[in-house]
């Protein structure tokens, strides 16, 4: 019994601090450690969430997720072939363009937002482009690195066994590069989620970033905290989903690899 309790204690040791944090948040403004106007107690934030209704929050969140999904998918659709072509088919061109690509990737994505407002006008396009820009580079660079990291011996041996280019691409290069690509996609997802909020605070009429921006300009302080918590929660959920996907696909890959050996 004692051991079981200890085990549970060991399991939840990190949970204590998180609980303590929220308790402190609730108590500190009430007993005067913090100004309740600027740091409202946690219960008031929950009350604010009730007032806004779950549906409203869900709509804002889904608008943001839709934007991220479209931008991220578009970036992947473009970046993956570009990465495969540059890394696999034209390594010399890749070397030639490397400095330029690195230079372009250094442009902070949210800074491009006003440019796209000038070019396309205010609207969804600017936000999509920001997400596209922030997701494109990590995916492309890691695809190139992944393709170039495939063991040439594997390609040669596949070729000597009579595999044509298409078979080599699907059976050797893609499985070999997948791990690296997934790392890039994870980075791209984190980056684009971050940039999404930035872009939405700069100019949008809906979404989580807009919720923050709007409540800031209206002075609804509890709502700001609510939006921060919501964004953190959704960010964590997105992160875990990608991690879960990665783990599942990598397991499949390792199993396939074992079988091949």
């Amino acid at each position, binding site marked *: 019994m004692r051991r079981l309790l200890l085990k549970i204690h060991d399991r939840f*040791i*990190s949970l*204590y*601090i*998180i609980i303590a*944090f929220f308790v402190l948040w609730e108590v500190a403004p009430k007993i005067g450690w913090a100004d309740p106007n*600027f*740091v409202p107690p946690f219960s008031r934030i929950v009350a604010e969430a009730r007032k806004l209704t779950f549906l409203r929050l869900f709509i804002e969140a889904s608008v943001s997720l839709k934007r991220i999904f479209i931008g991220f998918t578009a970036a992947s659709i473009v970046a993956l072939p570009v990465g495969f072509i540059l890394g696999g088919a034209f390594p010399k061109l890749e*070397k*030639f*363009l*490397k*400095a*330029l690509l*690195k*230079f372009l990737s*250094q*442009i*902070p994505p*949210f*800074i*491009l937002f*006003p*440019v796209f*407002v*000038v*070019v396309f006008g205010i609207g969804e396009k600017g936000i999509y482009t920001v997400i596209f820009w922030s997701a494109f580079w990590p995916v492309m660079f890691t695809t190139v690195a992944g393709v170039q990291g495939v063991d040439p011996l594997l390609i040669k041996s596949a070729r000597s066994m009579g595999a044509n280019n298409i078979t080599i691409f699907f059976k050797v290069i893609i499985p070999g590069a997948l791990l690296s690509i997934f790392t890039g996609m994870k980075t791209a997802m984190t980056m684009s*989620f*971050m*940039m999404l*909020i*930035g872009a939405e*605070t*700069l100019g949008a009429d809906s979404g*989580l*970033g807009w919720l*923050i*921006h709007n*409540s*800031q300009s209206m002075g609804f*302080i509890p709502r*700001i*905290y609510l*939006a*921060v918590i919501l*964004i*953190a929660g959704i*960010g*964590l959920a997105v*992160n875990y989903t990608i991690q879960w996907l990665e783990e599942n696909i990598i397991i499949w890959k390792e199993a396939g690899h074992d079988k091949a050996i």
Partner: protein
Amino acid sequence: MIKQYSYSKLARENGETLRTFNTDAVKNFFKKINSFLYGSIAIILFFLSWEAASNYDLLPSSVVPPPTRVIAALAVSFKSGELVYHMKISLFRAMLGFLLAAFISIPMGFLLGTFFKTFERALLPFLRMLEKLNPFALFPVFMILFGIGNVEKIAIIFWVAQWPLLFNTIAGTRSIETNMIKAARSMGANKKVLFFKVILPAAVPGIFTGVKISAQVSFFMIIASEMAGSSQGLGWYYLSSSQSYQVPLMYGIILFITVLSVIINLLFTRLEKHFLVWKESSFQSN
């Protein structure tokens, strides 16, 4: 550097002069310059084609001005001293926040990574959660807590710069082989000696990886936070130029910020490499 070291040693052993070693270094140097020139060809071509495209009306020049006009606008702003003034403010804020983070989180990382392991295990998931908080979402919270101004900007930079430093320091202290610590202890090293002779040297490469990442993040975030709310700094300068439709200047500032971030990136990558090589070569000489 490792190669050079072993090469010179080899040369000495074979009774050769060090001249071969020197030509090797010179060759390396030329190779570097060569690859630098090779890389810049693409960049130059990019700007040339941009210039040509806007001169032949392929791009609407009111929205995408040619690079010559962009550079001219940047030069005017540079001459009036405005650009340098805002750059100084941005860099000052970023540096102060970054240094503050370095002074607090590197020692924290050491403490958590070495002496307070249970505490670290309890705290780490919470810290990871805080790290994942979206900094853009936190801007208003920082504004509420600190008001808009230098303090708020420095606090934001401190917040975003501390995580890479902290986690990389912890990872660095973890990367030490336990055998090394055991060996040092069995030779009678006390905690102080253990720290300065074993833990610190082994953790330094990890720390400098963190330093590099957080320097990049600091610069990036100072621009972002100045765009979110400020009346000074490069980010604000950029936003104000875009709001007053000074389009060439706007592109010029983007170019300027990008070049600055490339410079910061290169500088800190260099620093990181220096310490990485130092670790490897010191291991080799052992």
